[in-house]
């Protein structure tokens, strides 16, 4: 049960990724976006390769984005959804992955409700693995598309401040951004109600506050995180109304941000919970841009890991 392989073959999180490699990956995303603007949106880069999407947790959007990215690069795609499989009957992660490997899959894209599952798949399969979200741990392509969207807006990430507001405790998006953005020279401010804001997340380039106005005050980008009803049911919060009072990203809160600040959301949005309608649909919103960039970022990641090899 040895350590997962080097980051050169996988995108599990950003632990082993250098700033130079990350910048190269973002640069390459420009090229992929250009491909998506062509009448024929397809390149032969991954011809002959089979990409397996192993989604142990449902996510129509992320899965669609990855599968489309793989197909636009001419890969064959094997889709595996755990809900309708033997996994629900208690099959071990290793057995599932070894079975999928027997279909001659060349790389895995993994989504799982447990933190660390993508690392386990990398260990068990010996194949390149792209983490499409594992528990609270990481959602690296989401953070990359966030970074790309901010860079697209402002030309660079160095010196920028990104405020992330909401259920930080349970958020792989917040953790991945807190890992990625400081490597690219940006500051991250994590903000949310105290029970959902673990103190131990503070670190190099990452600060915490429970004061949302303070969080957005110098922010170039403000991201709202999805708040799930489950948090009320498990005692973290009194009610959605109580959350909305201090932490909903709405025009009143955004009035405290600089005029140039843009608004991001990893989707899907709970409208008028963590994000108000007017802000979601307003001029500062880059939410649909994120979706578009997401596909290009995922193409760039696939290229980087399976063709470019760093």
């Amino acid at each position, binding site marked *: 049960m040895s350590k997962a392989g080097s980051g050169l073959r996988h995108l599990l999180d950003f632990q082993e990724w250098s700033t130079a490699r990350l910048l190269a990956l973002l640069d390459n995303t420009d090229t992929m976006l250009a491909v998506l603007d062509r009448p024929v949106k397809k390149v032969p880069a991954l011809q002959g390769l089979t990409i397996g999407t192993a989604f142990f947790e449902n996510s129509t959007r992320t899965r669609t984005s990855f599968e489309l990215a793989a197909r636009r690069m001419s890969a064959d795609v094997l889709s595996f959804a755990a809900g309708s499989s033997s996994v629900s009957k208690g099959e071990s992660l290793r057995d599932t992955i070894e079975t999928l490997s027997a279909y001659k899959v060349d790389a895995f894209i993994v989504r799982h409700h*447990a*933190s660390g599952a993508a690392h386990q798949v990398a260990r068990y399969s010996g194949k390149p693995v792209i983490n499409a979200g594992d528990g609270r*741990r990481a959602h690296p392509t989401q953070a990359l598309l966030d970074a790309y969207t901010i860079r697209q807006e402002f030309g660079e990430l160095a010196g920028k401040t990104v405020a992330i507001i909401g259920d930080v405790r349970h958020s792989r998006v917040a953790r991945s951004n807190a890992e990625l953005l400081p490597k690219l020279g940006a500051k991250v401010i994590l903000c949310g109600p105290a029970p959902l804001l673990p103190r131990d997340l503070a670190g190099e380039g990452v600060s915490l506050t429970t004061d949302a106005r303070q969080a957005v005050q110098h922010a170039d980008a403000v991201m709202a995180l999805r708040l799930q009803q489950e948090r009320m049911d498990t005692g973290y919060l009194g009610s959605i109304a109580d959350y909305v009072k201090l932490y909903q990203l709405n025009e009143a809160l955004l009035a405290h941000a600089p005029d140039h600040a843009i608004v991001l959301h990893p989707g899907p949005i709970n409208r008028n919970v963590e994000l108000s309608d007017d802000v979601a649909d307003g001029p500062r919103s880059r939410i649909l841009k994120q979706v578009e960039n997401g596909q290009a970022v995922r193409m760039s990641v696939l290229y980087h890991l399976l063709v470019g090899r760093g």
Partner: protein
Amino acid sequence: MTLTITNIKRIHADQSESITIENGKIKGWNLAPEGDTIDGQDATIAPAFLELHAHLREPGQEQKEDLASGLAAAAAGGYGTVVCMPNTSPVIDQPELVRALIAKATGLGQARLRPSAALTRGQQGDQLAELALLREAGAVMFTDDGRTNENARILRLGLEYAASLGLPVSVHAEDATLRAGGVMNEGPVSEALGLPGNPAAAEAARVARDLELCRLTGAHLHIQHLSTARALQLVREAKQAGVNVTCEVCPHHLLLTDESLRGFDTLYKVAPPLRTRADTQALLEGLQDGTVDCIATDHAPHTRAEKELDMLQAPFGIPSIEVAFALMYTHFEAQLGLPKLVDLLTAGAAQVMKWPAPTLDTGAPADLVLLDLHTERTVNPTEFKSKAKFSPWAGERLRGWPVLTVVDGKVAYRRE
């Protein structure tokens, strides 16, 4: 039946000696060899170890371990006596179950079994089990173990009743509501890994409560597998105040920290969780200053497939009974010294149970172990007698391997 073991050394002694065993007792030292003769090859002799905390999984979970594999593993680890935990399926809360286990173990010729029994029916925590009948059947300790005793009143009653029967109650001291869904120590590492954390306060808070019950009742409380500096300090202060409490620590809590979880390997998922370097250091100091009474392994075998589930689903537990002494000797001989280390595995554990201290004197029961303190060997789980053939220490080079274990005058284990 007579057996002579030649060419052995007592701890810190230079001269080579021999010991003769007859009818399950030590007949004497340096007698003329008689009966079967085993060449001890210069190994060090000690009383066989006592294990106060092992999960042998029988009845009902034999895919993980059974009496034959678990007690063979214990003998291979140098243990002569094992107290097994009652969290089996069904729970060991019936006198007939205790009797059946002892009867079965007796025929195996491995380590001796002294079962613990549930303190409450089904380990549910809300109604006392038949403690007097369980004792009569052979139970030596009462515990609800991992089913933490959330109902303090019932634990109090259990302490009082068990004390009147002369048996200890042992507890897995964690506040279940604070522990919640934690799968590792709560702290910077758990937050970085995005894994639900179990705070040190869950253990300390529960130890504080249980020490109050101990004061209230005067009964003997044994606290299992202490993992935090804070809880240890609470026990230290209570002992200084004369509270009737004992405690154990496990090799994995002395050797490993939450940093081990960084690779997302479920091998390191254990309850209580692996803590921080400050905690391991404090536990070592607890061994040195006598706050900790004994070393127990909390040997917790599972199937490989169970351990290959994800980090949330995989069961808690590390199998370690076969490597415990070698681990402790290799890593802590310098800090503890061999006599103290052996004491923590023999007399210390016996004292917790109010059993006579094991000795190698003429006339004593012939439970003994020979230890090769010099040869380095690689931990190879495929050779384990336990059904759980994996280990956090696989591939590690260790010294201090048991080479012969004698239980009741009979060879229970001999290294090939």
